[in-house]
């Protein structure tokens, strides 16, 4: 066990205003796993010098469900509902990443309509994830109630869309290898267009409420800085990496699906602090709306699933594949090895929240314990994905 002990800390001599040396003890605080600001069952072993974080060790695994090993014993299709439960905010993007990996393994072609549906549902997922994150981040800063409830009011509208399409609000289990499970119900596109048309008004309102708020700026600007070099070295992805100013978006880099057909920009931050991470998400929502408007305009008719796709007795040929997409939290990848059997020989996930979390200590050192809470909030983790 590598737990910090009081002897292992270097106690810096401190002076009070008269110049006399003060002596103090470090305090080890175990934040979590039931702490409300840790977004689930996550624990931070924080060593405090007064209120300043001297050392921080993330402890996780409380929500470990053995997903990867279970998937090696379940059929390819049987793992699809489990991917919903990885990052339960964004089940549709999880479905897509997994379906992409299996499609590459089995050589299935996704029909055009299904590609459009995937883009639409993925961008809606990004909207509801980011809007939820902004609400929770402000909740962490002490803005209890209002921002979170406003965010959730808007998020519910997107979840209503998911419910009428997939039958579940969060555990969608919608994508299938070679397409989607079912076609859009009647009137769904109009409903989606209304939600997309109403969203900018909400974003304006949200930004009026918060983005220029002096308290928010004082709490977030310059807090939890992450340099681009460190972010790249730590293989951080997603909005966190872009907030540090690195232009890397899998939608642009890989152009998976049909993302090359849409015009959108990738917002980048300057400082890599918590405020930038918050603003990146707000700006990304605007870009998602732009993609959604184009996709909802251009969606063609036709089948939603590859006729070669098989539900029962699905056995891809031996080989390996890696499917990655730009999830709302970062690059989400599934690595699969097939030995020709009905279940994968190896199944591995590249979870963005887990990898983004590894630099938590570097961002928190030297900040106060209250800042550590909002830095963690700005990383945007879901423990279902961190622990798997």
């Amino acid at each position, binding site marked *: 066990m590598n737990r910090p002990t009081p002897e292992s800390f270097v106690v810096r001599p401190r002076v009070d205003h008269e110049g006399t040396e003060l002596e103090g003890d470090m305090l080890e605080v175990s934040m979590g796993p039931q702490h409300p600001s840790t977004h689930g069952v996550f624990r931070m072993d924080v060593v405090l010098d007064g209120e300043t974080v001297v050392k921080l060790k993330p402890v996780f695994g409380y929500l470990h469900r053995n997903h990867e090993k279970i998937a090696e014993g*379940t*059929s390819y*299709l*049987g*793992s*699809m*509902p*489990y991917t*919903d*439960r990885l990052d339960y905010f964004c089940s549709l993007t999880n479905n897509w990443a997994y379906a992409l990996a299996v499609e590459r393994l089995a050589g299935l072609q996704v029909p055009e309509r299904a590609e459009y549906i995937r883009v639409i549902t993925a961008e809606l997922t990004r909207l509801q994830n980011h809007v939820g994150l902004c609400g929770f981040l402000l909740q962490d800063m002490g803005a209890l109630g*209002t921002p979170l409830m*406003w965010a959730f*009011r808007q998020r*519910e509208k997107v979840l209503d869309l998911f*419910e*009428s*399409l*997939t*039958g*579940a609000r969060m*555990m969608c*289990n919608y994508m299938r290898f070679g397409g989607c*499970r*079912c076609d859009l*119900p009647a009137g769904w596109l109009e409903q989606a267009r209304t939600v997309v048309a109403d969203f900018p008004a909400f974003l304006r*309102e949200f930004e*009026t*409420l*918060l*983005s*220029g*708020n*002096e*308290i*928010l*700026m004082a709490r977030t600007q310059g807090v939890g800085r992450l340099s681009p070099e460190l972010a790249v070295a730590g293989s951080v992805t997603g909005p966190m990496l872009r907030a540090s100013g690195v232009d890397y978006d899998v939608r642009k880099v890989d152009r998976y699906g049909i993302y090359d057909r849409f015009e959108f920009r990738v917002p980048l931050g300057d400082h890599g602090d918590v405020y930038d991470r918050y603003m990146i998400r707000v700006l990304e929502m605007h870009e998602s709306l732009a993609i959604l408007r184009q996709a909802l305009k251009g969606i063609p008719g036709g089948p939603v699933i590859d006729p070669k796709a098989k*539900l*029962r*007795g699905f056995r891809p040929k031996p080989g390996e594949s890696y499917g990655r997409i730009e999830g709302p939290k970062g690059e989400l990848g599934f690595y699969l090895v097939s030995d020709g059997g009905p279940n994968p020989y190896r199944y591995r996930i590249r979870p963005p929240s887990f990898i983004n979390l590894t630099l938590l200590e570097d961002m928190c050192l030297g900040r106060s314990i209250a800042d550590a809470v909002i830095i963690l909030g700005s990383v945007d983790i879901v423990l279902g994905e961190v622990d798997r």
Partner: protein
Amino acid sequence: MIGIGIAKGLVQTARNLLGTYTDKDRLPTIEYPEERQALTEATRQFPFLVHDGDDPAKGLRCVACQICEKECPPKCIYIVKSRDKRVDYKGQMQFYPATFDIDYSVCMSCQICVEVCPFESIKMDTEFEFSTADRFRGLLFDKHRLAKSDAHYHRIHPTDAAESDAVMAAERAKAEAKAKADAEAKAKAAAAKLAPTPAASPEAQMEAPKPGSDTPTMPM
């Protein structure tokens, strides 16, 4: 000037507060037990077994092929196949489930059993109020509690039920055509028996689709 951002935010909050009196969109909550949200057609909660006719014991569509038991990701379905067979809707002899249990406390409502079922017999219900004081038996549903009528299925998922009916009608027509063709072949064979060269036995083709096999005859 410091404070302008806060003042703007407060104006926004005040507008929202006043808006709740005029704009219905600003009041998104409902008083749940008294007031209920209309469920969408795609809503899924837990699986149930469809039965035709009035008697759930006789009309279950399930032929105990155990595909759903095998495919269920959390393995919450338990099926024991019957020893004898009975006539199904196509007029063929089929097994039926002697035991069919679903543990709702384990089920994760993923709908995979519904998708893989080739016999249109397991579907998703929209019922969700199952709270019970008995955590073991209370949520273990046997086939008597799971059986619900086709009319119920038509009420909760009209589009899907119509599709199921179409699939079943096509299957029945196919089975009838096959039976007719078989009867004709039999007659022909009987006629050919008089001739010295014996024709291949048509009975071999009459076999009902093998339950439990990985390649069922009915398309999804």
